[in-house]
């Protein structure tokens, strides 16, 4: 049973990986990577890593891949010819490099002479790889790396906002094209793209001088402006 599951999941993982590389449209590459990640989660389950498998499916195949799909849709996945531009020479070199890398990795792992490598592994208890065990390890032995990882995530989130923001400000016409009920409840341009890029001074005077008194006087809010 385990063998059958291993070969099905392993072939799915390898086929998904090949699909990522050979698909010409980036959108199909992303979908191939999703199938690859799901197969890999099955392999993780075979290795008794239940929590990692669940995190893989939810975080990777769920959240990260949705981000990929959005960016591919935004950028516009244009087809590209497979293979390096320089021609057959570079293609042959990369094939040779790939084969050499595979042989080297197999030597490094399978030929390492580890005694347990030809066994199904050390016998482990029923709670091996459960969320409780992993959480205990994360909060005791690996507390520092856990905190560093959380800080890294924070930096990445801020960095993504800074990288993907709109530069050079927003035109006043574009800013004024959007009205919402929040216009009367908060200072003007709060939470807008103009505030994010520090372009508040480029807005016309009328949009930045809304006070609560004015908002009460004019119940229809920003629609008059």
């Amino acid at each position, binding site marked *: 049973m385990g063998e059958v599951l291993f070969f099905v999941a392993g072939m799915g993982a390898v086929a998904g990986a090949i699909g990522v590389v050979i698909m010409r449209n980036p959108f199909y590459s992303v979908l191939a990577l999703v199938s690859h990640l799901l197969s890999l989660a099955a392999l993780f389950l075979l290795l008794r890593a239940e929590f990692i498998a669940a995190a893989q499916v939810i975080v990777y195949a769920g959240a990260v891949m949705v981000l990929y799909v959005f960016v591919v849709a935004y950028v516009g996945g244009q087809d590209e010819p497979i293979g390096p531009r320089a021609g057959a020479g570079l293609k042959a070199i990369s094939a040779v490099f790939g084969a050499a890398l595979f042989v080297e990795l197999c030597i490094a792992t399978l030929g390492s002479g580890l005694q347990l490598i030809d066994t199904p*592994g050390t016998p482990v208890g029923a709670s091996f790889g459960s969320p409780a065990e992993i959480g205990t390890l994360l909060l005791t032995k690996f507390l520092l790396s856990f905190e560093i990882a959380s800080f890294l995530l924070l930096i990445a989130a801020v960095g993504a906002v800074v990288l993907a923001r709109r530069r050079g400000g927003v035109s006043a016409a574009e800013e004024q094209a959007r009205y919402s009920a929040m216009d009367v409840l908060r200072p003007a341009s709060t939470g807008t793209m103009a505030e994010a890029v520090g372009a508040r001074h480029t807005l016309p005077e009328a949009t930045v001088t809304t006070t609560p008194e004015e908002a009460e006087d004019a119940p229809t809010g920003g629609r008059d402006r």
Partner: protein
Amino acid sequence: MDIGWFLAVSALIFTIGAAGVLTRRSPLVILLCLELMLNAANLALIAFARMHGSQEGQVFALIVMVVAACEVTIGLGIIVAVNRRRLPIDVDEMQELQG
């Protein structure tokens, strides 16, 4: 199932990812191939964790997943910024990030 089989699958996936990084030109697909290589490393880490019967390799894999998520976020942010400036989405054309 013997641990060696998992390691062989891991090596194969890593090789495919490396070949993809070398041959593809779209930075989106190159990021995907980087994910493949990170996942292959994850599979090897978890296989070794199972082999030794300790869960520390699984914690390593979790941290690798965090790093991969950060890398994806920043990489996709750069691609979106490049696309905003109407530059070609092609690693052969993008030889410098300045400006």
